[in-house]
């Protein structure tokens, strides 16, 4: 043996590594970013703690938006639910409320999400299937029957007709005698990601965004505790984007809403505190944690420096997270519990405010009750048994995690620049920039899995037959019952009042006025979701989307 006395520890380490065996294959994150075997202070360069991290609850909020984070209060465990008719879901809500849950999260069926009524020919086979069917205020009243809207916080996953469903909600509150300033909850109401990824849109992008500005303005004035938008990366990721694309596209969407709000004459500090975010928690553990941390830092910096927000409340990014549905496999479905647990842990270590954990059977159907319970228990184990909630941002200062955070932040700025070069958000949508980028990444990943370059347990590694698991079935009579109920409503309501309210909605929309008030009037006349969407289509036109393959 020669003497190592002159050799630095780093040189010795590098020599050792050069002589050692390495596993075959590329070492990259799920998003394709190269990963080094070891990170050291050299990877961080001149790391300014105050500038990069700061204290929790302080600019730039990298370590979390509250000074106490999960030591003050755990994240909200908010499981998304909805199926069948309004009564079916109301029964489930009451069961959840009786168990002490105060946060309700409504899943609507596809016809409602697409703004068509249950009796429309295209709704065939979809009514009440993936969520609850809501056609009119009458359904919304049944949905919240016996639930005190002053006490509950209600999240509604709805985009294209979000204002209409919000108008139903406000009308229900009025009937319950609950003042609007007492209402708490969140509308998803993020149309931009529909053009990028989820495909639930009907009007062209610009009037769609204008409708969102209507709800931002209306909430700022009349429903101040309600979050009018949850700016969502979740669906962008599910459609196949990388972590960096998810981060960048979602933040770019957020910036666009801020710009449009300011352009409409709102004060950024009046609406920015009510903008919330929704991210995916995917399977590459550290990359995901870095994404959440970078998101808060970018948002705080841009709101302060680019948009002139002055209040801390405008700078802090509150977010919800959901584990990655697209990471689950039909093969050996029990393994999905394990995947979901790691993904949920990354969202918690990333500092999320609320979390939905997917159920193991969701590649087959809507989840069974047992599967949903197990998914919720997964969060409870993280919260109560692992100890990870005792320390704020426990990975802060990790050479690796800080490097990843810096890198994904730089990637996001690079993508922002490309959106600007395309001519901004709307032009980039119309050119198909987002859709093409996402489809490229999805295809690359699918090819890697197909070639065995990336292993997925049960699919291309450790493959074996597993026993089938129970499947949740939807009552096949739901559609028939809902269609009959809608026919009855149309027969018994005051048709002249409906017609007048729809005419008024159209004229307000055509004059660029705020659409929420006329939507509430139309709701109270029992105009349906489909009728209001059709009325607005006559004003705004329809959009078929950019070519993307």
């Amino acid at each position, binding site marked *: 043996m020669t003497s190592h006395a002159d050799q630095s520890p780093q040189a010795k380490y590098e020599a050792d590594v050069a002589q050692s065996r390495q596993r075959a294959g590329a070492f990259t994150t799920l998003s394709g970013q190269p990963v080094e075997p070891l990170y050291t202070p050299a990877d961080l360069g001149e790391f300014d703690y105050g500038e990069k991290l700061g204290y929790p609850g302080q600019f730039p909020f990298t370590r979390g938006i509250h000074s106490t984070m999960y030591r003050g209060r755990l994240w909200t465990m908010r499981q998304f639910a909805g199926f069948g008719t309004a009564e079916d879901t109301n029964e489930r809500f009451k069961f959840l409320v009786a168990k002490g849950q105060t946060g309700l999260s409504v899943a609507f069926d596809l016809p409602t999400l697409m703004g068509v009524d249950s009796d429309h020919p*295209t709704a065939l*086979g*979809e009514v009440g299937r993936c969520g609850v069917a809501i056609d009119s205020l009458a359904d919304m009243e049944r949905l919240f029957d016996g639930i005190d809207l002053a006490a509950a916080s209600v999240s509604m996953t709805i985009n294209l007709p979000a204002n209409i469903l919000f108008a139903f909600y406000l009308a229900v509150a009025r009937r319950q005698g609950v003042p609007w300033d007492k209402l708490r909850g969140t509308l998803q109401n993020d149309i931009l990601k529909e053009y990028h990824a989820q495909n639930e849109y009907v009007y062209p992008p610009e009037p769609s965004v204008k409708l969102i500005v209507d709800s931002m303005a209306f909430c700022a004035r009349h429903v101040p505790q309600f979050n009018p938008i949850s700016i969502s990366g979740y669906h962008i990721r599910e459609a196949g984007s990388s972590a960096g694309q998810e981060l960048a596209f979602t933040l770019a969407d957020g910036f666009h809403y801020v710009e449009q709000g300011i352009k409409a004459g709102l004060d950024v500090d009046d609406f920015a505190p009510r903008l919330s975010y929704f991210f995916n928690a995917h399977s590459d553990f550290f990359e995901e944690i870095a994404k959440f941390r970078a998101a808060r830092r970018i948002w705080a910096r841009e709101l302060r420096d680019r948009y002139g927000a002055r209040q801390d409340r405008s700078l802090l990014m509150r977010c919800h997270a959901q584990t990655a549905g697209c990471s689950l496999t039909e093969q050996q479905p029990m393994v999905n519990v394990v995947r979901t647990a790691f993904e949920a842990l990354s969202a918690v270590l990333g500092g999320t405010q609320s979390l939905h954990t997917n159920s193991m059977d969701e590649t087959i159907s809507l989840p069974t009750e047992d599967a949903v319970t197990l998914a919720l228990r997964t969060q409870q184990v993280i919260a109560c048994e692992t100890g990870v909630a005792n320390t704020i941002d426990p990975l802060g200062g990790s050479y690796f995690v800080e490097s990843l955070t810096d890198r994904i932040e730089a990637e996001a700025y690079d993508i922002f620049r490309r959106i600007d070069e395309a001519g901004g958000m709307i032009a980039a949508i119309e050119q198909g920039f987002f859709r093409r980028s996402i489809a490229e990444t999805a*295809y690359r990943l699918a090819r890697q899995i*197909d070639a065995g370059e990336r292993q997925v347990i049960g699919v291309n590694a450790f493959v074996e037959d597993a026993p089938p698991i129970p499947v949740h079935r939807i009552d096949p009579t739901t559609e028939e019952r809902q269609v009959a109920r809608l026919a009855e409503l149309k027969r018994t309501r005051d048709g002249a009042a409906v017609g007048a309210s729809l005419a008024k909605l159209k004229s307000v929309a055509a004059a660029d006025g705020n659409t929420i008030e006329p939507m509430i009037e139309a709701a109270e006349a029992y105009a349906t979701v489909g009728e209001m969407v059709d009325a607005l289509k006559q004003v705004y036109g329809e959009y078929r989307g950019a070519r993307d393959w």
Partner: protein
Amino acid sequence: MTQSSQPSKHSKPGRIRVVLAKVGLDGHDRGIKVVARSLRDAGMEVIYTGLWQSPEAVVRSAVQEDAGFLGLSFLSGSHTALMPKVFDALRAAGAAGDIDVIVGGIVPQDDYTMLEKLGVARVFGPGSGLADIVSFIQQRWARRTGESTVAR
């Protein structure tokens, strides 16, 4: 979208033509676009109809495009209601025997039999390999075009 004036009934072997479609309201299109690209990279001619099509419209496209295969993707569970309509439209167009129908997406195992009874050639569920889809279509095409030559 291009139209071919003379449906060939696939009498001559050539490039395999596949129409891929989404029917109904379901907007999940990640899978179908990945499959579209992968079939195209395997040398097939692929026509993707885009979202929100009616059963009649996709059958019309398949007939007009002289497609040997029609692939439909469902992720919201509406295959049970919509696939019978696709086959009705195929029969109405007199194309039921000429076009092989393939289904992909989220389909519970219990529904496979129902789809096969309708006439679906194959269901590719979550996690299906791209290479498997390509080779299924190629083999099926080889058998069909081979048979039609023999029959003459």
